[in-house]
C-alpha cells in the first residue's frame, strides 16, 4: 500500500470509484450467469463483466498508473481492445455449437431448420 500513498486525493477517489464500479458489473454479470434459466439467456449475462466491468477496471488502472508515474500510460487499452474483439467471436462460436447440439437432439426449445434450408 506504500506506493499508492503518492496518489493525490482526487486521483485516489477516482480510482476507488472506477474499481468499485468495474467489480460491481462483473459481480452482477456472474450472478446472472448463476441465476438465469436456460443457456440462451445465460449467454447474455457475463458479457456485462467483459464490456463495462473491464472498461471501468481499465479506466481505474490507467488513471492510477498515469498519475503514479507522472506520464500517460495507455497500454492497458490493449486488454480492452483484445477483449472487445474476441468476446463476440467466442460467444458466436459457442452459441452456434449449442444450437447445433440442441437441433441434433431434436429439442423443442429451439427453432428447427425448415426443409428448404
Amino acid at each position, binding site marked *: 500500500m506504500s506506493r499508492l500513498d503518492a496518489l493525490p486525493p482526487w486521483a*485516489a477517489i477516482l480510482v*476507488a470509484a472506477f*474499481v468499485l464500479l468495474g467489480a460491481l458489473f462483473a459481480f452482477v454479470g*456472474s450472478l446472472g450467469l448463476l441465476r438465469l434459466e436456460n443457456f440462451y439467456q*445465460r449467454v447474455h449475462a457475463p458479457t456485462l463483466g467483459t464490456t463495462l466491468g*473491464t472498461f471501468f*477496471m481499465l479506466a481505474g488502472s490507467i488513471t492510477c498508473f498515469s498519475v503514479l508515474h507522472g506520464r500517460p*500510460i495507455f497500454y492497458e487499452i490493449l486488454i480492452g481492445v483484445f477483449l472487445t474483439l474476441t468476446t463476440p*467471436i467466442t460467444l458466436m462460436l*459457442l452459441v452456434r455449437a449449442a444450437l447445433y447440439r440442441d437441433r441434433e437432439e431434436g429439442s423443442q426449445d429451439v427453432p428447427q431448420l425448415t426443409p428448404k434450408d
Partner: protein
Amino acid sequence: MSHGLLGAAVIVAQILLLLAMSFSIIRMVRGPRAQDRVLALDALYVNAMLLLLTVGIRSGSLLYVEAGLIIALLGFAGTVALSKFLMRGQVIE
C-alpha cells in the same frame, strides 16, 4: 483519508470479484450441459483477469497488467478450441 478509502474500495472490489469467480465455478460444476460449462469457464477467466488488475492497482506494479493480457489471450484460445470441440467433436481437422 482518501487513501484509506482507496484501500477499502480495492478490498471490497476483490471480495466482489472472488464472489463472481465462485458463482462461475458453481455454474461450471452444476452444468447442466457442456455449453454451460464452457460459458462459465469464459466468465471465470475474465473475472480472474479483473482480479489480477485489482491486485496490480493495490501493489502499484505494472507487471500485473501484462499477466492480465496473457490470461485474456489464453482464455480466448481455450474457449474457441472448446467451442470447436462441441461443434465437431475434434479441435483440429
